Every structure is written in structure tokens, then in C-alpha cells.
């Protein structure tokens, strides 16, 4: 492929240079000329040398060069960093003027697509290409985070600051409800899994990433392509040299805002008493013991200073975490062999004390040309690490209680009664929960050039992953340990996967008009995962923790294990055709057969087709002299989703135990627990087979255009898409008298349509200065079109609008309700509940509003009687908010001056609603309550035991603009040392400033938009150094 491409380039160059061809002359000694940039400015400092020799020079301040000692066969190479290298055969020329093209323009970049690559200019689908050298190095432990803001329509959310936490990636919205929305990740041709937690690949080892967004690009991955595909190309050997690169990054993090905790215990106590009194409960802070014997001081004791304790638990629990990332890479290339070895050691601290993560990645890559037409290669990734889980400590603990008895560190931890399981230091010291993981990815390939235009490639991939979790909950301090008299266990998980793929590629240009590229191949995939769990309770002696589980009560030792296997066979093919460098066509087809589906639907077919028109190669466009590129693209295709557990086509018995004659005995029979009801918490029973189950399928239409103006210095990419997903994999209900609750079936449809716009400009590009910027805008509109049969899926009906809906997600305990629904005609996960029109000021007002009893009193929420029947009940609920953004926009700017560069990334999201569960339970908002003296219309009174309805009062606008990243770098170029090639020092700040009206800590949340409080997001400061020898 690569050679072919080189050849093609030579042909093209030769053609362009035809006009320069002068009269033949037998011998040439000297060639001279001027080198300019596309805007016509002369370029100084360009390396000009004869290929394969040391004969060379550089252009002077006027871009002029002159080179001696050449022959007709000599090839001159022009190279300058940031520009595309050119090779020109001297032939009969004596004057060779060269216009060097900016590498940033990327017109003839090779873009990796599934099972091959194409020139960017010949793309018909929507594919975004991200070159890692263009991304400022951010502190990121996995690849997911790096993609943020790199392509329109790609949403990257990092809701968690936990060490080692992944991100959520959505390409063009979610197209599935239950079968997963994460895009497929393919590393050097190996489909390793779904995005979200690809921790095995170090960001430093990545050369480029391609994002396949439309069906024309992703349908080649068939049943796994519906959510888009991320193709990762790792770094290979350095060009014709040996390089050793050492890079070191250190990051320190801090909270972006103050914690919202009680600092004034007297106020806290006063408000608590007020709330309990209003609710008819005995106040807590009255200077008396409760039934547990815990003394709660009175408000007076707290306010007059006689109570000795006011603990800042956040100081006990949190720290400013530091992370370290060290990478050493050796890359080398000879005529025949490319070699790369890279080692990364990464440690990360969580914001909670002793919540730690560390990881070692080793990546070895060798490609060797065995014979002229036969290349083999291997890529081996080894990754291992561990995690000490100490998250979730109680920073919210009541400040009136000390850390230790009598606040004396030599004494025991102070516990609030016998049922206190949240002492953060006690848990840190006595509880253990650690995880060790190991991953191995190995790839071997052989590539043979059977004919000049026919290649065969076969690649065998193997992946192995293992994880061991150890935990022990002691008899004291933990709930599990107290209830079970000590509880410990080991959870083992192991998976392996083999992917074997072979394909032929035929690539030929006929008559210089018809360019044909055809690919056909076969893929086999086998996946196996095994788990085992060992648990023991009732420990004799706790000093070993879970180190000796057999020390637990022999009658209470439990084991369980599982084995899961899936197989997939696929046939695939693609045809690319270019006519006259103007008209483009791509067709692809994949057939997938999966063991997850029943014999009735085991095979599925995923076709796609696309057309493109390079209008800029038409005379009538060229005559306009406006466009350097004007390309129209259109595609249609079908891809699928199979992200459901296997064995749904099989009958499955359940297992439990029954206590007989003083011991537990195994019980087995029909009926298997498939889940827990999110509302009632009761088990959901399944196990009845569905042999008709099939794939979700997503049809996608994409219409796009690429524009370039002003010598390609200004570029526009615009795309419209319409994704329509049918046969959603969902669980239907069965008649309860059947003894089964649910069964997986296909039913329901979702639509995503949207628009993506990217503007790129090289605003300044002269002498020492460069300024480039790219802006991205994307809008996705999501709609649940159908939820399948109303009865089978147990849909509810909105009595006012007739909308069919079902609840989606988990119950929020404070409301005893699920906030989100799937509603036909609405976006996925809209909020459903009551509307509030202020606060009731008089009882008459409350009664008139249709409320009664305690809910009609002054200081209560005034719910709106939507159906105007005079009563507030569940029929007065409606859609009250949408967690999906209206649009997202981002801005990337890069400025460089000589050796300095500055990069900035601004990210924003507009129009999403947040359901703020903490809108009336924080120290910041509780004092604003309604009272007789403060008859506010904004907050209700404090009343313990209030039956709170889900309402729009809790919904807040989540729009934000964030200065996500700012980095400053200095490139060390030439120190005059022979052994030193280059270096770079950089400083980086992440999550620097956020502009938002949202009241909580941070508006960037998971896709359900529910805000749970917690602690502020982190701002990260990074200092990095990179040296290449």
C-alpha cells in the first residue's frame, strides 16, 4: 500500500512537472531555483539534498538554493518541518522552482479506514483524522480523553475524576437503549473492544486516530459499527534513524471550587431542628441522648462555643492528588526493519486519601521486510497495574463529632452509635479493597505482494486480560463486616479473545483515468470470559484479612464462577472507484454470523454505498478560481449493534440455596434472575429462550461537503446525517402467571439526526509566526420514534397528551421516583414529573391549587394542576426537561512563535437540562428556606418527611463554556550537540475556567443529566519534559 502510494505520488508529481520539462541535455552539473510557500512567500532554511547521498544545502533568506554534482537520474529532496517533503527527478532541468505545501492542509494524507487506507482526498464517507502531533499533550491516562474537541459530532464526557477512570464517548448521539452506545476501538487492525476504558494503550504510543462516523465508513465493521469506530494507529519505527525519546509529565490537581459543607454547626443544628419540628418529629439537637446513647448538643451549646468539636471532615478525607507519567521509547528503522519499543509508567492519585492507581505499559512493535514482496510484523502490548480503592469516604460527616474519642489521637475512633459505618479514617485503615490487572495484546501479521497490484494480508490477534479484586470488611467499622462478623473475598476475572483476519487488496489504475481499489476478506473472532468469586464470612481472626479465606466459618464459605463464550464469523468486502480524479464511489458489504443470536437470525448483512464528486477538478470550478477543494459526498449504509449478553437464545435455569437440616443445600430449577427492578428493588426473573433474537440495525444517511480556499489555508467540512435505528434490543414483559418477567426481543426505533460543521484556518503563517484555529459545531436531535408494542413492553400513557412512555434509569431515593423516561416522540431520557409554580404562601392558596393536608400548607411547593381537574396527582405529570444538549461547540487555537507554542481548547455545550437532586439539601441553599419571616417564593420550608414529587423545580440549565485546556510549550531545537536531536518543555492546565449558571459543582455529567452532588471537579496542572536523542 505504502509503496503504491509512493509510486502514485511520483506519477502525479511527474505529471505536474511536465510543463517545466526543458530541452534535453546530456549532462547536468548544477540545479538552482527558488522555494516558496503556497502564498508565494519565499521559504528560507529548506533542506535541499540529493537522495541517497550527503550532497545537500539549505535555502537562503530569499529561498534560493543551488546544488552541484548532480546527474539526470538524481532525485532532489526538499524538506522543511511543517511542510510536505517533495522529491523531484532532475532529468533535463537546470532550474527547479518548488512550491512547498503545508502539511497542515492534509490533502494527501493517508487515512486509515477499516481493512485498508485511502487518501484523504478520495474519501467518500465521514471520517475525521486526528494526528497526535497536532494535539497538545494533555494529562490523560487513556486515549478516550484525548479525543475531546478533536472532531465535530464526537462527544467526550469525563464525569469522574477517579484515578484511572475512563470517559464516555458518543459519536452522533446514542443509537441504542440497552445494547451499548460506545464506539468500537480498533488498534492497528485489531478490534480490541468498546471505548470507555481502553487502558492498555498509552497516549504516547499513538501516532494517529481516525473516527469513522457515517455508515459508509463504519459498516465495514458490520454488527459492531453502529456507534461509530475509532481506528488507532500506533507509532512505528522512526524514519531512517534511531531515536530515543524520554518524556516525563507530572500533574497536580486541585478542586475547582470550595466544598459546600456545613461550617457553622449551630446553623446546621438549627435548620435540622426546624425541619424535624415542622415534620412533627422530635428535634435532634436538644442536648440529649438518642436511643443509641449518642449525645446531640443543643443549638445553644453549639453557638456559644461550649461544644468542643467542629471537624472539617473534608480536610481529613481529601488531598491534592499528584500523578506521574514517564515514557521511554526507542524507535529505529533500517531498510528492512522498523522497530519500536515503548515503556510507560503511570501513577495516579485519587482525590481521596490512599485512593491510588498505577500502571505499567510496554509496547513492542517490529515490522520486517523479509523479501521484496513479503513483510511480516508483530505488535505486543503488555500492561499491568493495580488500584487501591478507597473512594467514597464520608467528607459529608456531621462536623459536631470528633475524629477520635475526646478528639485524642491516641484513643479509638469516635463512632456515632453502634451503626456507624462511615468513619473515613477507620475505613481507610481497616478496610481493604484492591485490584490488580494484567493485559496482554499480541498481533502478528504477514503481508504479501502477490502481484504488483494484488496484496494479501493476514493478521492474527490475541488478547488476554486478567483482574483480581481482593477485599476485606472488618467486624468493626463496616456494615458488611458487622453483619457477617467479618467478610472477605476474592473476585477473579479473566478473558481472552482471538481475532483472525485475512484479506486481499487489489489496487490498480487503468489508463490513468480509472483508479480501482478492491478488498475482500474473512474474519473469525472467538471470545471467552471466565469469572470466579470466593467469599468467606464470620472470621475467627482478622489479622490476615482476606489472605486466608478458609479462616472464615466453613459453613459460610461461598464460591461461584461463570464461563461465557461467543463466536463471530464475518465475510467482508469493499470497492473504491475513482474516475478521472473527479468522481468517487465506495461500496462495502459485511456479513456477520454470531453465536449470540438464534438459528433463525444468526447471519446479518451490512451493506453501504457512497458517492463523491471532486468538483474542484472540474474546469468550471477551477475557472472560478475560488476553491482549492470542493467536494460533495453522500453515503447510505446499515450497521449493527450486538452489545447484549450471550445465551439469551438458550433456556437458563437459576440457582439458589435452601436451608435444610441445619445446612445450606443447592437448589436449581427454571427461572433465572436477570436483574433487579429499579423501582421496587425486587428480582426480575427470566430464563425463557428467544430463538428469534436478532441484531439492532442502524441505517444512516450522510451528506457532506469539503471546501478549501485561499491556497487551502481556510477549510470547511460540513455534514448532515440521519441515523435511524430499528429492532432495538429490549426486554419485553411476559404474563406474570407464566412465572417469567422478562425476555429479550427486538422492538422500538430511535432516530438521531444532526449537523456538523468544522472550520479550520491557518490564519497567520509567515516567518516565525504561525496561528491556526479550528472551530467545531455540532447539533444532534434525538427522538424515540417507537417503543414497540404497548402491552408487551408495559408502556404507560400520559393521560394528558397520550404519549406512550416507560421509566428509564434508576430511582432517586429522595423522590421515590425515577426522573427519566423514554417517551415516544421525545428525546431519550427526558425528565418526567410535576411543574411547580412557586411556593404556597397561604393555606387557601394551597387548597385552591388542588393540594390537601400537609402539602397545602404555607411553605410547600405549589404544584401545577396540569389537567385542571382540581386535584394534584400523578396525572399532572408531564415532560419537564431534556438532558440532551441542543448543540455543542468547541474552539482549538494554536499559536507558535519560533520555539514557543501556545495552545488553547475551549469546549462548550448548550441547552441541556440538569436534574439537581441537591437543589434543596446543601448548606448553600437550605438557609434560603421559606419561613414565616422569609416568605420567599423560591424555596420551600424545611420539613422532614415531606413527600417530594419529581418536579421542574429541581431542573436547572446546564449550559457551559469551559476553558478546558491551555498549554504552553518550548521546543528545544539545536543545542549543537551531536547526540541530542530535539526536546520540548511544556506546561498545561486542564479544566481551567468554566462559565455556567448551574448551581452545583460542575455541569458536565453522565448522559442522564442527573446531578448527585459529590465533590467539585479537579483542575489539573501539568509540567512535562520530552527529550529525543
Amino acid at each position: 500500500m505504502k509503496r503504491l502510494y509512493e509510486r502514485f505520488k511520483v506519477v502525479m508529481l511527474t505529471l505536474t512537472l511536465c510543463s517545466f520539462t526543458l530541452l534535453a541535455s546530456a549532462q547536468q552539473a548544477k540545479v538552482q531555483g527558488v522555494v516558496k510557500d503556497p502564498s508565494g512567500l519565499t521559504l528560507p532554511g529548506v533542506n535541499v539534498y540529493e537522495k541517497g547521498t550527503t550532497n545537500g544545502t539549505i535555502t537562503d533568506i530569499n529561498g534560493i538554493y543551488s546544488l552541484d554534482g548532480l546527474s539526470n537520474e538524481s532525485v532532489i529532496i526538499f524538506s522543511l518541518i511543517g511542510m510536505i517533503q517533495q522529491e523531484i527527478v532532475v532529468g533535463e532541468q537546470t532550474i527547479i522552482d518548488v512550491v512547498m505545501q503545508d502539511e497542515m492542509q492534509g490533502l494527501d494524507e493517508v487515512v486509515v479506514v477499516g481493512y485498508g487506507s485511502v487518501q484523504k482526498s478520495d474519501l467518500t464517507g465521514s471520517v475525521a483524522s486526528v494526528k497526535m502531533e497536532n494535539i497538545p499533550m494533555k494529562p490523560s491516562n487513556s486515549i478516550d480523553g484525548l479525543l475531546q474537541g478533536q472532531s465535530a459530532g464526537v462527544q467526550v464526557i469525563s464525569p469522574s475524576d477517579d484515578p484511572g477512570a475512563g470517559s464516555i464517548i458518543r459519536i452522533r448521539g446514542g443509537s441504542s437503549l440497552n445494547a451499548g452506545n460506545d464506539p468500537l476501538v480498533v488498534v492497528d487492525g485489531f478490534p480490541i473492544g468498546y471505548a470507555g476504558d481502553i487502558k492498555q494503550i498509552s497516549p504516547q504510543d499513538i501516532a494517529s486516530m481516525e473516527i469513522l462516523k457515517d455508515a459508509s465508513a463504519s459498516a465495514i465493521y458490520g454488527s459492531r459499527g453502529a456507534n461509530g469506530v475509532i481506528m488507532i494507529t500506533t507509532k512505528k519505527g522512526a524514519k531512517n534513524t534511531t531515536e530515543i525519546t524520554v518524556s516525563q509529565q507530572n500533574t497536580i490537581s486541585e478542586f475547582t471550587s470550595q466544598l459546600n459543607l456545613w461550617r457553622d454547626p449551630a446553623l446546621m443544628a438549627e435548620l435540622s431542628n426546624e425541619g424535624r419540628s415542622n415534620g412533627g418529629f422530635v428535634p435532634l439537637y436538644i442536648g440529649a441522648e438518642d436511643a443509641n446513647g449518642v449525645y446531640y448538643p443543643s443549638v445553644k451549646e453549639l453557638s456559644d462555643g461550649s461544644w468542643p468539636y467542629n471537624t472539617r471532615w473534608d480536610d481529613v478525607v481529601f488531598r491534592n492528588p499528584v500523578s506521574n507519567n514517564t515514557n521511554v521509547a526507542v524507535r529505529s528503522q533500517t531498510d528492512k526493519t522498523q522497530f519500536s519499543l515503548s515503556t510507560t509508567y503511570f501513577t495516579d492519585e485519587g482525590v481521596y486519601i490512599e485512593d491510588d492507581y498505577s500502571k505499567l505499559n510496554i509496547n513492542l512493535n517490529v515490522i520486517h521486510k523479509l523479501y521484496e514482496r513479503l513483510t511480516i510484523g508483530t505488535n505486543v502490548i503488555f500492561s499491568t497495574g493495580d488500584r487501591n480503592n478507597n473512594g467514597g469516604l464520608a467528607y459529608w460527616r456531621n462536623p459536631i463529632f470528633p475524629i477520635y474519642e475526646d478528639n485524642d489521637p491516641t484513643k479509638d475512633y469516635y463512632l456515632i452509635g453502634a451503626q456507624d459505618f462511615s468513619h473515613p479514617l477507620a475505613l481507610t485503615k481497616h478496610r481493604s479493597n484492591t485490584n490488580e490487572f494484567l493485559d496482554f495484546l499480541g498481533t502478528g501479521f504477514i503481508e504479501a505482494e502477490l502481484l504488483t497490484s494484488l496484496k494479501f494480508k493476514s493478521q492474527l490477534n490475541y488478547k488476554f486480560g486478567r483482574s483480581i479484586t481482593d477485599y476485606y470488611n472488618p467486624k468493626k467499622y463496616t456494615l458488611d463486616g458487622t453483619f457477617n462478623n467479618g467478610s472477605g473475598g476474592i473476585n477473579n476475572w479473566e478473558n481472552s479473545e482471538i481475532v483472525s483476519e485475512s484479506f486481499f487488496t487489489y489496487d490498480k489504475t487503468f489508463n490513468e483515468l480509472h483508479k480501482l481499489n478492491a478488498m475482500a476478506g474473512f474474519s473469525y473472532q472467538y471470545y471467552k470470559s471466565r469469572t470466579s468469586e470466593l467469599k468467606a464470612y464470620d472470621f475467627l481472626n482478622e489479622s490476615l484479612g482476606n489472605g486466608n479465606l478458609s479462616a472464615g466459618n466453613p459453613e459460610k464459605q461461598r464460591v461461584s464462577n461463570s464461563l461465557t463464550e461467543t463466536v463471530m464469523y464475518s465475510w467482508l468486502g469493499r470497492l473504491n472507484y475513482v474516475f478521472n480524479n473527479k468522481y468517487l464511489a465506495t461500496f462495502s458489504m459485511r456479513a456477520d454470523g454470531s453465536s449470540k443470536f438464534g438459528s433463525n437470525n444468526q447471519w446479518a448483512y451490512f451493506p453501504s454505498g457512497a458517492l463523491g464528486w471532486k468538483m474542484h477538478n472540474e474546469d468550471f470550478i477551477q475557472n472560478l478560481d475560488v476553491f482549492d477543494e470542493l467536494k460533495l459526498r453522500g453515503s447510505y449504509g446499515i450497521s449493527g449493534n450486538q452489545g447484549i449478553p450471550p445465551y439469551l437464545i438458550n433456556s437458563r435455569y437459576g440457582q439458589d440455596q435452601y436451608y435444610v437440616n441445619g445446612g445450606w443445600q443447592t437448589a436449581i430449577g427454571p427461572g433465572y434472575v436477570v436483574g433487579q427492578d429499579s423501582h421496587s428493588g425486587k428480582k426480575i426473573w427470566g430464563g425463557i429462550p428467544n430463538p428469534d433474537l436478532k441484531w439492532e440495525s442502524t441505517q444512516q444517511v450522510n451528506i457532506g461537503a469539503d471546501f478549501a480556499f485561499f491556497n487551502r489555508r481556510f477549510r470547511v467540512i460540513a455534514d448532515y446525517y440521519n441515523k435511524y435505528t430499528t429492532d432495538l434490543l429490549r426486554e419485553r414483559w411476559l404474563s406474570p402467571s407464566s412465572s417469567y418477567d422478562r425476555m429479550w426481543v427486538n422492538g422500538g426505533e430511535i432516530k438521531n439526526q444532526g449537523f456538523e460543521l468544522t472550520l479550520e484556518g491557518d490564519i497567520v503563517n509567515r516567518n516565525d509566526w504561525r496561528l491556526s484555529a479550528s472551530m467545531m459545531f455540532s447539533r444532534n436531535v434525538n427522538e424515540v420514534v417507537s417503543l414497540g408494542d404497548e402491552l408487551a413492553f408495559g408502556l404507560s400513557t400520559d393521560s394528558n397528551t397520550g404519549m406512550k412512555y416507560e421509566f428509564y434509569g434508576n430511582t432517586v431515593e429522595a423522590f421515590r421516583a425515577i426522573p427519566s423516561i423514554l417517551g415516544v416522540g421525545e428525546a431519550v431520557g427526558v425528565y418526567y414529573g410535576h411543574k411547580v409554580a412557586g411556593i404556597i404562601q397561604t393555606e387557601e392558596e394551597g387548597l385552591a391549587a388542588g393540594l390537601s393536608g400537609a402539602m397545602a400548607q404555607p411553605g410547600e411547593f405549589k404544584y401545577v394542576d396540569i389537567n385542571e381537574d382540581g386535584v394534584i396527582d400523578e396525572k399532572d405529570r408531564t415532560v419537564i426537561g431534556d438532558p440532551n444538549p441542543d448543540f455543542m461547540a468547541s474552539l482549538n487555537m494554536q499559536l507558535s512563535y519560533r520555539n514557543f507554542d501556545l495552545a488553547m481548547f475551549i469546549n462548550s455545550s448548550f441547552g441541556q437540562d440538569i436534574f439537581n437532586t441537591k437543589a434543596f439539601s446543601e448548606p448553600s441553599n437550605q438557609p434560603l428556606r421559606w419561613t414565616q419571616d422569609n416568605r420567599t417564593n423560591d424555596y420551600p420550608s424545611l420539613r422532614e418527611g415531606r413527600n417530594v414529587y419529581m418536579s421542574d423545580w429541581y431542573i436547572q440549565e446546564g449550559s457551559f463554556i469551559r476553558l478546558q485546556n491551555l498549554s504552553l510549550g518550548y521546543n528545544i531545537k539545536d543545542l549543537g550537540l551531536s547526540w541530542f536531536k530535539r526536546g520540548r518543555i511544556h506546561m498545561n492546565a486542564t479544566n481551567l475556567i468554566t462559565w455556567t449558571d448551574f448551581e452545583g459543582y460542575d455541569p458536565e455529567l453522565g448522559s442522564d443529566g442527573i446531578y448527585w452532588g459529590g465533590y467539585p471537579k479537579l483542575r489539573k496542572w501539568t509540567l512535562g519534559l520530552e527529550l529525543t536523542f
Partner: protein
Amino acid sequence: MKTLNNIIFGLIFAIGLFSCQGLDIKPKGFYSDENFFKTVEDADAALLYAYDALTLVSYAPITYYFGELSTDNCTVKPDEGADAQAIVNWDVTSQNELLLQYYRSIYIAVNRANAVIENVEGRGFNKVDENRLLGEAYFLRAWNHFNVVRAFGLAPMQRSLIDKLDETNATLPANMQEVYSFLIEDLTKAIDYLNVNRSVGRADKVAAQALLAKIYLFAATAKESGVPKYAALTESVENLYAKAAEYSGYVLNEQGEYSHDASLQNIYNVEMPNGPEHIFILSMDVSGTQEGDYSKLSKYFIPWIDGAAVYLKNADDTYTITHDGWSVFQTEGTLLQAFESGDKRRTDLLVSEIFDETGASIGTVGNGVIAYEFTRKYVDPNYEGDKTSTRPYFIRYSDVQLMFAEASANADGLAQYNQIRRRAGVSELTSIGGLSTEEFRTLVIEERQRELAFEGDRLWDLRRKNIVQEKVIQAAGLSPEDVSFYPIPQREIDLNPNI
């Protein structure tokens, strides 16, 4: 490098030799109809699975929501969910979640019993094993079907195992005669197949006889008192009473394993599930790891006392520790008033004062520390956190004694009735001479309320005697149908075209 190349070569050419797994994968990690029911041990495990269904969190505790909350025995705590309030207020619609939980759990248990019946009959196991397995499975099928009939009236009778989609829509029985013939048929087989063989948590011949007596008695009284749909029973009321007396008589007179326990405390001692009274008791144990394996029944009945551990005073002046509860099932005044003064079932089994470990009083019902007088029938001093071994008392000997008294309404029955009252320390009835049969039976029903209080039985007595509206004011104004049967859950109506 050469070695590496060779390795890679080897790997790649191994692809061709790699024996590929086909697309049809046999599950290796779980049992299914393809690999189970091969041996008698399999069938035993399946039978235990059928028993285990009775421990489901959606079944065992829910029984009390209907059996107690809907009656004059208990009310629910004010902040319990709307579905529980609806049961107290006799406002149960087909949408009620608790109703659905109870209904579907019954059929889960039925299907598990059917799996045993279908896979044991005629499989060539030895006769002893086959009889034992079938007998218990038939018992369980009848037990669960009887639950559904008492709660819902005409509801599906599942006569075979359901394991395919096209079997999931059952039909309703034509009438009560069809229902009761089926129940009686199953229990007659169970009695025939089983021996007297006590095992905590399992049923034997005596349990089957007691259940059949209960079914006959229910049929007799329901038909007699004009409960809707029961007119369809072909057997006369007298004959049904006679059958009830006959089968409860077998329990009282023809076995030596179970007997009247003279000590009230012993009956409810959580460490004595094998006491003489317990003909059929559910097996749950504190050593279990998930709810259902262990029990949280105590939490439902005991009031919330700040999450503290408290001590209860015993009749012998010792103290028993217990955790506090969730105040879900709160004793009603009408039940307390039903006890004569000095009735030990109130003085010894209901708690109105709590103590600390030194015996000092922490609080009383009077001073508001305890929200209500609560029962000691579900107290486990060996509790671990929320976990206890407190078990539902399914069939007690005393229950059968009172069934016999009611069914026979003769001097023998009076003796049984008096034995119950004697243990409670209240006056005995010297003769039934001055009473009509109906009056005596009413006395027995009143005695049942006191004796079986908090054991999930009250509603079924009120229903079969058709006195719900007489005893429970919240049920006023309902139609006879609505009083006698809960509606079939909406999901069944929606999804099952046959209903």
C-alpha cells in the same frame, strides 16, 4: 530477529490449522433443560428450588401485607408507599405493585413445582424417591395455588411446566369447582405419596393433610357465607365441613410427630423451628447471604427505635436482645381489645416496654419511645445487623386444632378449643350446649384472631366468613366481589390475551 520472525511465521500459519469453534455454542456455565434433570439428585435440587421460591422477598413478606394490613390486626406506617396504604384502605387496584409481586411470586413457585412433577414422573427413579419428590411437589403446587385462589379468586391453574414463549398465556378456570377439584386432587396425591417425615422447611404427609383440611374448611365456610363464585362448588357445605374435620382429625389423632406445645414461648423461640407445633414452617437462616436466605421479618414488625439494640423482658424476668425495626406493620387497637385481660398472648407475646442491657427501662408505649405495642413472634436474639432467622409460621398444630374445632363443632372440637385457651391462661368453655353451631364457630374465629395474630392468616378468615366489612371499616361500601377477591394484576390482563 530471525527467531522472532520464525515465531511470527509460525503464528500466522497456525491460523489455518486453528480449529474454529462453530456458531452454536453450548453454554458451559449454567444449567438448562438440556443438561439438568438427569438424576434423582437433580430432582432433589429442583424440589428445593420450589421451596426456595417461598422465601422470595417478593413473596414471604408480602404475604403479611395482605394477611395482616388489610385487617383489623395491623395498619401500616404513614410513610410507607402508596401501594401498602391502598391495602390498608381497601383501595387496591389492578395496578397495585404489591399485588403484582404476590401474584407473580406464587406462579414462580408453581412453575418450579411443575418442573419437578414433569421431570420426575415416569423417569424411572426408584419408587421411594419418586413418591417423596412428587408428593412434596404436589403439596407445593397446591399450597401456592391455594394462595392465589384466596387472594384473587378465579386465577390460572398451571398444570404443566412453562418453558417456551408459546406456553406463557394461561387461561382462567371455568369456575370454583374446577379450582377446588384440582387443589384436592393434588393434595390427595400428596397425602398418598408422602409419609410422616419431619424436616424443617419441608412438608410431609401431615402438612398435606392439614392443608387439605384448610382448603375444605375455606370452601365450606365460603360457600356457607355466600362468598361470590363459591356457589359453584358441587359438594354440600356439610360435606365440606365433614371433610375438613376428617383431614384435621388425621393430623390430631393419627400421627405422633407433631403436637400441642404447652409453652407459648417455645412456639415462637427462633431457635426451635422443630418444635412440636410446627407442621410446616419456612426455613430461613441468619447465616444466609441474601435476603430470603436470611429473614428481615423482625424489621417489619418491630418499631424504629433510633436504630438501637434493645432488650425485651421475658416471662421469667430474663432479657432478650433484639435489633429495632422499621415500624412497617403496626398493631391496631382493635386487635389489642380482642384480648381478654390476662391473656398471655398479649401479656407475654406483645411488648410495651423496652430495656437496656442492665434491665433499666428505656421507654414504653406510654411515653412514646415505642410507637406501638409489638409482637414477639419475630424476634431473633442472634440477629446479625438486619439479618435474622425469623420464619413465617405456615401451618401450626394450634391452627389445625382450631380448624378441627370449627369444622366439627362438637365436644371433641371444644376440647381442642379449650386446650388453646388454657395455654393462654384464659377461661375455658365448659360445654357447647348453650351455643348454636354458628355461635361456636364464631367463637373459634375470634380465637383464631388472638392465637394466629401476626401470622398472616386474618384476612383469609374474614373473607371465608364474609365478615370483612363487619370488621374492617375501610372496606365499607365495596361490592361483595371486591371484598372477596383482589383484582388480577393489570400486567396479566394487558399481556395475556386469554384473560
